[in-house]
C-alpha cells in the first residue's frame, strides 16, 4: 500500500533522502520553510576538501529528485507534530495539517550567532566577519574595498568560535570548522596573493579524507601560518585594523598581533527551527542540544517516536558527504519501517 512520507527540510539531507526514496512506491513530500531548497549549501562557494563548486553539487542533488513520486512544498514551516493512530500529524505554521505514515526530520543546523562571543566584537567591529559571511563574499564577489587595494593584508582565522565553549553554551566540537578554516585560508591566499593568513587553533581536527593533506598543502604551498592558541580578545584600533590577543601555547608566551581582517570560524548549533517540533513530541536531545537518536551506535537515524526518523545535521555536525550518506541510511530505515507497518 502506498504511504506518505514527509521530509521536513529541503537541505542536502532532505533532498538526498527524497532521491533515495524515489525507487519506493510511497509518496514523498518535502516541506521546506524557505522559498528554495539547498539549505546551507546554497550559501557556500567552493567546498572542502576538493574545492568542488557548491552550486554544481546543489544542482545535481536537485536533479536527482524523482519526479514520479516526490513533491516539494516551499514556505512551509513545520512547527509541531503529534502522534495519531500510529501516524504522525504534521502541523505547519500556516495552520495546515498533514497526515504522514513516516516523517524524516532533516531540519539541519543553525550557524552560531557570533555576537554571543562578545569579546570578539562581531557586529561592532566591521572587519570582524564570520566564515559564513566570507563564503558570501566569495559567492557574490563582494569583498570590501579596503581588502582589494593590492596592498599586503594580514588575516586571522579564529577557530572554535561558539564551539568547545561552556561560556557560549556549546561544549561540542563542530567538527567542520577546522577544515573550513584551512580551506578558506587557502582561498584567501589565492584571492589576495599578497596576504598572509594566520590560523589560531587549539587542535586541528583533520578527520576526513584528504583533510590532513589539505592542511599540509596550506602550509607548504600557501604559506598559511598556524598558531596553537585560542583567541582571547579582539579590539579595534584607530584605522579599523584589529588587535588580536592569544597565547602561543607552544612557546608559552602571550602575543598581540594586528590584522586587517578577522574571520570567525563559527560552529554549528542545534536548529532553533526544530526546537518546537522536538518539544511537541518530547523528543530527547543530546547533551549539546542536537536531536538524539535511540541509539548512537546502531540506530543513529531512528528516534523513540515510532515513524519518526532523523537525517543530516539535525542530529550532529556532519560534512556534506556525511549528511548525504546519513540521508541514504535514513531512507533505508524508513522503507524497512513502512514494510513492517504494512505487515501489521
Amino acid at each position, binding site marked *: 500500500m502506498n504511504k506518505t512520507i514527509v521530509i521536513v527540510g529541503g537541505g542536502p539531507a532532505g533532498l538526498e533522502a527524497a532521491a533515495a526514496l524515489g525507487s519506493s512506491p510511497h509518496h514523498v513530500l518535502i516541506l521546506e520553510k524557505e522559498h528554495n531548497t539547498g539549505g546551507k549549501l546554497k550559501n557556500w562557494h567552493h567546498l572542502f576538501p576538493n574545492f568542488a563548486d557548491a552550486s554544481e553539487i546543489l544542482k545535481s542533488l536537485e536533479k536527482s529528485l524523482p519526479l514520479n513520486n516526490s513533491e516539494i512544498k516551499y514556505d512551509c514551516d513545520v512547527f509541531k507534530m503529534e502522534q495519531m493512530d500510529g501516524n504522525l500529524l504534521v502541523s505547519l505554521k500556516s495552520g495546515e495539517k498533514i497526515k504522514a505514515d513516516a516523517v524524516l526530520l532533516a531540519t539541519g543546523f543553525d550557524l552560531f550567532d557570533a*555576537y554571543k562571543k*562578545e569579546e570578539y566584537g562581531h557586529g*561592532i*567591529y566591521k572587519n570582524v566577519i564570520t566564515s559564513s559571511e566570507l563564503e558570501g563574499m566569495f559567492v557574490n564577489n563582494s569583498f570590501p574595498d579596503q581588502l582589494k587595494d593590492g596592498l599586503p593584508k594580514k588575516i586571522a582565522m579564529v577557530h572554535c568560535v561558539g564551539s568547545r565553549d561552556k561560556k557560549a553554551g556549546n561544549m561540542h566540537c563542530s567538527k567542520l570548522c577546522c577544515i573550513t578554516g584551512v580551506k578558506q585560508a587557502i582561498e584567501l591566499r589565492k584571492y589576495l596573493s599578497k596576504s598572509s593568513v594566520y590560523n589560531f587553533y587549539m587542535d586541528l581536527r583533520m578527520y576526513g579524507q584528504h583533510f590532513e593533506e589539505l592542511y599540509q598543502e596550506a602550509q607548504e604551498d600557501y604559506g598559511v601560518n598556524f598558531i596553537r592558541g585560542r583567541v582571547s580578545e579582539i*579590539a*579595534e*584600533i584607530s584605522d579599523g585594523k584589529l*588587535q588580536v590577543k592569544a597565547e602561543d601555547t607552544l612557546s608559552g608566551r602571550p602575543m598581540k598581533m594586528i590584522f586587517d581582517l578577522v574571520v570567525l570560524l563559527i560552529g554549528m548549533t542545534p536548529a532553533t527551527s526544530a526546537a518546537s517540533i522536538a518539544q511537541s513530541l518530547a523528543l530527547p536531545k543530546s547533551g549539546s542540544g542536537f536531536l538524539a537518536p535511540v541509539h548512537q551506535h546502531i540506530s543513529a537515524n531512528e528516534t523513540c517516536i515510532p515513524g519518526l526518523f532523523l537525517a543530516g545535521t539535525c542530529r550532529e555536525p556532519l560534512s556534506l558527504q556525511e549528511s548525504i550518506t546519513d540521508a541514504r541510511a535514513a531512507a533505508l530505515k524508513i522503507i524497512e519501517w513502512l514494510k513492517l507497518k504494512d505487515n501489521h
Partner: protein
Amino acid sequence: MEQEGKKRIWSEYQKEIADDHYFYVRSCIRQTFFPGSETTFLKILRDDLSRDVFEDARHTTCTGIGYHTDIVPFETIMTIAARHFALMTEAGYVNFVPSCVTSFGIYTEILDTWKHFPEMEAKARDYLWTATRREFKIPDNLSHTSDIIYRFRNELAELSGHRLVNKNDGKPLKVVEHIGCHYAKMFPKCGVGGAEFPAVLSGMVEAWGGEVIDYPERRHCCGFGFRQYLIKANRGYSLSNSKKKFESMQPYQPDFIVANCPGCAMFLDRWQYTIAEMEGITYDKSGKGIPVLTYEELAGLIMGYDPWVMGMQMHQISVEPLLDKIGIVYNKKDKYLGSKGQYIGVPQPPHFLLQ
C-alpha cells in the same frame, strides 16, 4: 564601530538597581585617596536626588585587600561580610551599596559561593553568631555606587548646569572610561552592560554629552595587582600595566579618564606622574597629563560642585585644563587652602609634568 552591535549586547545585561533606601559602606582606598568623592556621592543622592542613604559608623573594611593579598582566609572575609549584612539588617535596610569595586567583587563572590555551597552560608551565620551574636538577612539588592549614579544619570543630566562638551569648539569631550576588573569580569551579569562592553560609565558619559573612546587596551587591568603594588619590589608590574593602557589610549587624545574603582583612578593618576618624571613622557599634547576623575567627581562637576570641596586638588594630574574646557568657574587661589581658608602650604611642582 557599530553602536547597534553594542546595544544588542547591553540589552542582555539589564541589572536591577535599587531606587531608594541604600545601606552605604565605604571603601578604604576611596577614603584614603578620594574622600571627597564619597562626600559628593552622599550629597548628590541626599540633596539633589532626595534619596535615603544610611551609613552605620560601625562598619569597617571588608578586608578585601587582605583577602586578595592572601593573608585573610575566605572563612574570615565572608564573616566580615556577614557582619556588614547584619548591620544592614539591624538598620532595616535591604539594599546594600559598597563604594569600593574590590568590596563589590567580594560581596558578589561571597553571595555566589553561598548560592552554590549553602553549607558555607550556614558556616558564616554560625561564625558570626559565635563572634558577635549578630544575625543577618541577605540583601535584596547589591549595587555598586557607580550603578546608582548610572541609574540616575538622566535625572542628573536634567538637573545639571554643565555638559561634557568643549566650550571652545562645541564638540563632545573624548572620554576614556576605565572599569575596575572586579566590577564585572568575575560575574558579568552583576555589571551594567556586562564585562566586555560595560555601560555603567559610558552610559553616564553619553548621558552628559561626552563621547566614549574605545581603545584597544580598554579592558586591560590598571595593574594594581594588590601585592604587586603594595610591595615596593613588585611595583614595576603595576606601572607597566598602566603604561600599556596610556600608550594604547594616547592616539585618541582623550580629554580625561573616568574610573569606577578608586584604586584604578589613583593609579592612572599617579603613574602618569611617575612615567613623566622617569622618562619625560606625557600622554597628552599639553604636557600636563590626562586628568583622571572618579565618577562621583564627574557627576559633581556637571552638577556645579566646587572641585576643591570634592577633593580634586588631591590629584597629581591637574584638573584645571578640563575644568576650563567644560567652562566650569572655579577659584584658582582656593585650590590648596584649608577648610577655613587658611594657608597650609602648597605641593612642590613636579619636575617634568606641567601644572
